[in-house]
Structure formats: structure tokens, C-alpha cells
């Protein structure tokens, strides 16, 4: 009787969450795997199943090659672009710059810090299309572009960033948005460091830099690890700003962009659902691998243990 009751309670409390998880997290991945091994194209019908046809477009088996697979040119390129996009955005902006913002805005008087943080949140609050349009105006290669209006005061030739430095454009555009999330998390972490630790450090004669190094950074270890993993996974599949600012340009055709252009992008060869799904599947696998790898590197386990010191 009691056991039944317990089971009933379990279903009552966990049921809705489990159903939601299955419907919105597990089901799409299952569908994606099914589609990736089919030849779904233009219509939503499966003609051949299962087939590895789609994966043959990405690489072919070759015992001579590294890991036994020789990647196709375009796919290799997409992987390389994805890696540079994710790493650059992550380490320059989403972690380092976010850290700098958090440390500086908590060091200045409270009101001023709040104003600065609010300004840094603006890009995240503006609709992505508006934000992208502003970027397009900033980097416009003609003389009317905002950047060129300033640049031409000192130089004779206008800059054409989208042509000459496409990766820089999407890294900065994504980074300025991405930095604000880290900034908020780090700020709240810095705020939760007990005041007496700062006072003690100052009494011992520590300058601002030593305080950052010996008091703040150790306390931020866990939020930094979290932000790194979370943002790496987010950047891996993000293509919104790349598409809005660069369009389907070859110079910024990351894996996520490739998957989108092959499936849903109108007018640029879309409709290859199975092909896109196979690319997405590889992204899922890469994402899981990256997460596990970081888990090992950062030693997440020890971070999840109960703190050894109680600070009251």
C-alpha cells in the first residue's frame, strides 16, 4: 500500500518534468538521429532508411588518414572555422572580457558599476535583427559606414572588414553579447565573497592586483568553469548573428551555419534535411565530447563536492 503510494507520489511529482524532458529534449535528438540516417530531401518522406549516404558527403573511410576518416574539403573547413570561432569568442570575450567587466564594475562605486553593467546588457536586450543591422551599418564597406567615417579621418582607403576580416567581425559581434552573461554571473560571485576577506587582505598590504589574484579569482573558479562549458556549447550551435551579419558567406561557414544553409535557408540550396541532420548529429557528438573533456580538465567533480571550509 505504502509502496504504491510512494510510486504514485513519484509519478505525480516527477511525471510532468519527465514528460517535458522527453518531449522537448530527448525527442528532437531521436528525430534528428533518424533523419540523419535517411535521405529526406525536399519532402518529409523517408525513401531510404537506414543509410549512411549523408555521412559520405562529409568524409570517406581511408585507412591511411588520421582516425581512419578523410574529411571532405568543405567539411574540414567548417570544422576549422567552428573551432576558431568558438575558441576566440569564448576566451577573448565570454570569459576574459566578462571577468574584466565584473572585476572593474564591482571595484568602482556601486551606482556607477550598476550603470556600466546595464549598458553592457543593452545588446543582449535588443532584438537580434536590430543588433545585426547596426553591425552592418558599422562595418559597411562604403564611406557611409560608421567605422569608415572615423577611419577615413586618419587613412585614405576605407576598411572592408566583412571581406578582409570576416572572423573578427563575427567574433566581436557575438562576443559583445556573450560577455554580458559571464559579467552577471561573475559579479554576483564577487559580491558573495565576504567583505572581511578583502579587509584582511588590505590590512596585510595587498594591492588591487593581488586582491584580484588571491581573493577574487580563487572564489570564481566554479563560475568560470561553468561559464566556459556552457558558453562553449552555446557557441558551437549558434549561427543567428553569423547569418544576419555575414549571410551564407564562405568565410564564416561554421558547422551550425552549414547545417542551416543545407536545410532551412531559403534560396541557397536548402531542403536537404537529411544532410543537415547529419551535420547536426556531428555537432551533438562534438558538443558531448567537448563537455566531457572540459569536465575532466576542470575537475568539475571536486568543485561539486561540499566546500571544505565553512565561512560564516
Amino acid at each position: 500500500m505504502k509502496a504504491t503510494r510512494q510510486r504514485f507520489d513519484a509519478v505525480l511529482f516527477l511525471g510532468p518534468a519527465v514528460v517535458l524532458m522527453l518531449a522537448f529534449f530527448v525527442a528532437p535528438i531521436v528525430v534528428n538521429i533518424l533523419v540523419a540516417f535517411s535521405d529526406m530531401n525536399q519532402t518529409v518522406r523517408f525513401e531510404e532508411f537506414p543509410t549512411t549516404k549523408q555521412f559520405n558527403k562529409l568524409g570517406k573511410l581511408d585507412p591511411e588518414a588520421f582516425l581512419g576518416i578523410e574529411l571532405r574539403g568543405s567539411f574540414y573547413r567548417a570544422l576549422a572555422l567552428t573551432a576558431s570561432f568558438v575558441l576566440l569568442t569564448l576566451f577573448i570575450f565570454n570569459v576574459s572580457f566578462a571577468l574584466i567587466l565584473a572585476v572593474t564594475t564591482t571595484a568602482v562605486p556601486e551606482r556607477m558599476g550598476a550603470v556600466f553593467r546595464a549598458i553592457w546588457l543593452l545588446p543582449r536586450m535588443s532584438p537580434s535583427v536590430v543588433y545585426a543591422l547596426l553591425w552592418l551599418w558599422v562595418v559597411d564597406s562604403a564611406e557611409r559606414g560608421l567605422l569608415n567615417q572615423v577611419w577615413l579621418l586618419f587613412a585614405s582607403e576605407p576598411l572592408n572588414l566583412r571581406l578582409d576580416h570576416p572572423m573578427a567581425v563575427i567574433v566581436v559581434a557575438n562576443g559583445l553579447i556573450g560577455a554580458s552573461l559571464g559579467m552577471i554571473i561573475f559579479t554576483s560571485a564577487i559580491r558573495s565573497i565576504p567583505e572581511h576577506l578583502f579587509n584582511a587582505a588590505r590590512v596585510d598590504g595587498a594591492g588591487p592586483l593581488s586582491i584580484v589574484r588571491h581573493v577574487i579569482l580563487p572564489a570564481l573558479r566554479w563560475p568560470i568553469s561553468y561559464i566556459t562549458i556552457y558558453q562553449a556549447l552555446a557557441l558551437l550551435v549558434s549561427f543567428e548573428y553569423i547569418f544576419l551579419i555575414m549571410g551564407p558567406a564562405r568565410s564564416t561557414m561554421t558547422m551550425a551555419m552549414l547545417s542551416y544553409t543545407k536545410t532551412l535557408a531559403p534560396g541557397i540550396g536548402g531542403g536537404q534535411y537529411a544532410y543537415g541532420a547529419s551535420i547536426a548529429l556531428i555537432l551533438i557528438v562534438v558538443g558531448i565530447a567537448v563537455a566531457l573533456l572540459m569536465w575532466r580538465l576542470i575537475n568539475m567533480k571536486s568543485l561539486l563536492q561540499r566546500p571544505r571550509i565553512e565561512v560564516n
Partner: protein
Amino acid sequence: MEMKMTIKSFSTAVFFAAASALAAPSFADTITLDLWSRADRSGPLRAGNIVTSAEQLNRMFEAAGSDTRVEINLVETNNKGFDADALALLKAHSIGETPDIAVAAHEWIGSFVEAGLAANLEDHIAASPWFYTDMIPELWTSVMYKGERFGIPQDSEIRMFFVNNDILRDAGYDQNFIDELPGRVDRGEFTMYDWCDLAADTVKKGAAKIGWVHRPNVGPDFQMAMASFGIEIYNAEEAKLQITKSGLTKYYGWLKYCVDNGSLPADMTTFSWDSTHAAFRGGDALGKFHGIWNVGAQMEAFGLTGSKDYFDKLTWIHSPAAEKGGEPKNLSHPIVYIVGETENKDLAALLVAMASMPVPNTAHAVGTNHTPITYGQVSMPEFQEKGWALVAGTPLLARAEFMPNHAKIGQYNAITYTGVQAVETGEMTPEEAVDMVLEELEIELGDDVIILD
């Protein structure tokens, strides 16, 4: 996101009101036809003409004392562009929601036939000479798939290089040169390379800021340049797409030549449509490579009135030949009606035939700058007065190429365009781009593409 709405015209409404007052006969037999069309400002009458045809047919039924009535259920979609719309239509068909009539870009016919969506119209066309005898014969090519017709051309257009004569004059070219240019192109004396040299010269002399512009995204226009370089992109016998390695190398080589000599912007493929249009209509660029429907906007931008004014300011040329003595080319990209493989297909085909008659079709064509589909339309006063540019463009159809009606033409265009992008931005040499493009074509299209040397 689709809005389903039933259109009942005012006259039918009035008729119903009057009829119900007189204890109307109930129409036991109302046949509802689904009409699929994009909400497209550039051609509202594509769907509208079908609706008015249905009204006309209902009047005939009434006169004959029949109880049958036809009602059009307009499935209006908000897809951005014909490609997105065709994909949505294929999805609707694959879950059993096949429309009776659809407005579509002709190159999707192959996909529609393969998916069992489009009905074969050969019998219908053969049985209706009264409707179709005057159709401009070249246009039938655009609705053929494996030798049979699966659609009815709804409108047509013609693409060309537009040339700004004032820029030529500023650069020191005399009226004689300008007048002779179209003829020299037509005879194959003025080549693609001459075109880029000419454009580069006007830039050097400060008459133009930009030599010339092409579309900034994937699209059919490039096909006419490819055709100039001798690439036959369709093998009709085998119903397969085709590419020629040597032709592609020459074509990409020519693009590189034009970027290097300063006539074509290296970042052309990252322009927006707005800046592309502005480059030509703002008088910055000598040439633009696009279609006849631009005429209206050009008249407005340059402040022109009437045909004499227009042709004094602008010249039209075909896409020139690749080498002296070769053939110039241009392209037409018709929009077509297809009839769904449904139980009402005979009735649907009849409505399409009625909507393709000169009066409704001319109302669409003149209003939206499209060339006529029948010879007779050219002589209509409306065409003579308002459609002078379209009448002028109709002879160009003789050199027109069409996009092949092959299911994978969208992918083919997207892949060959990546080569254009790689060469223009300087990322690859023409030879590298050819290798990359051929590899991609082979991988993505497999047996659907024939690769020739």
C-alpha cells in the same frame, strides 16, 4: 504560417443576398479548389486572375442553368521567395494537403513531378488549342520535364546587362559607340572581357565609381554568364544536370579578371540587395546584370519619362559571348501555374487556361513589368502604351535560356555560387574553385550531375 481565407467577390455576395431574398435555389454542387500562392506584392494578379476566372465560370454555369458553382480557397503563404515557398508546398503535399492549383517558379517543376504533386497537362493542352495556340513557343520549354509539359507559363521576363549611357559619355565614348553596342554584342564581336575592360575604363576615368554589379546572392542570373562560356547546364535526354570543367574554369577566370582589373567589386557577394540596386540606380555603376522588371524603378530613380528618354539614358545588351564570334546569351525565368494531381485537376486546368487569356494576363504583365506569354498581347493598346519596355524586350527572348526543371537545380546553383564567392573574394584561384565546386557537386548531387571535361 498560413492564412486560409475564402474569397467571395462583391458581385457574388450581392448575388447571394439577392438570391436568398428570392428563396434561392441551393447550390447543391459547390466545388472548392485550393489555390496555393505566395503573398507576393510583385504579382498579386497571379492568384487574382484565377479568382476572377472562377467568377466568370460561375456566370457561365448560371447562364446554363446549372447548380454547380466553383469556389476558390486561397492558401496564401508568407514565404520569402519562390524557393522557400516551393519547399513549403512540397511539405504540404507530402502530408496529403495537395492544392489544386499552385503558383510557382518553373525550375521546381522537376521536384513537383518527382514528388507526384504536379499533373501532366499534355492532354489538356492538346484539347484546348483555343486557349494555347498563340503561346510564345520558347516559353513551353520552361514547363517541360522529360519531354512533357507539367505547367502553364504565367508570365515571363528577360534578363540583360543594363548599361548607363551617361557614364559612357562622361568617359569619352561617342553616341556612335553607344548606338552600336547592342549590335556588336549580338554579333559576338564584343566579348565578356571587352565588357570588363570597358567598365574598368570608365572607373579609371572617374566616370563611374563601380564598374558593374551582379546579384549579391544565389540566383538564376549567373546561368546566362555560364551559358556564355559554353556551359550547357542541362542534358535533356538524360534529364540530368551538367557541368563542363573547361567552361567553369573560363567562367571563374573571367570573374577573377574582372575583379583584378577593378571593374567588379571583390566583395560583391557580401553586398545587400539595397546597396546593389543603389549602385546602379544612384549612377555609381556603369552596368548591372539583372532583369526587365527593374525598368519601373529605374525610370523613377533617374527621373525618366517614356521610352525615348529611357533608351537615351540606358542601353540593354545580352550577356556577351565569351570569345569573339561566340554566342551571346540571356535568360528568362517564367513563373508558372501548376495543377495539382487531385480529383479536381480537369476543372483546375480549365481555370488556369482562362486565367492565361490575353485580358487577365496583360493586366498582370503590364502592372508588374513582365513580358507577355502570347504574341497577341503585344498588339494590345495597354502593352503599346504602358508596356513599351516589355514590347522592346520580347525580341530578346529569342536568345533566352531557361533554368532546367530539375529537382536539384537549387543545390547546383548554390554550389556553383560558392565558387563565385571564393574567386571574387580572392580566397581561391579559379582552378582551386573549380576543383572545390566539382567535388561538392559530385558529393551532393551524385548521379544527378554529369561532369564533362
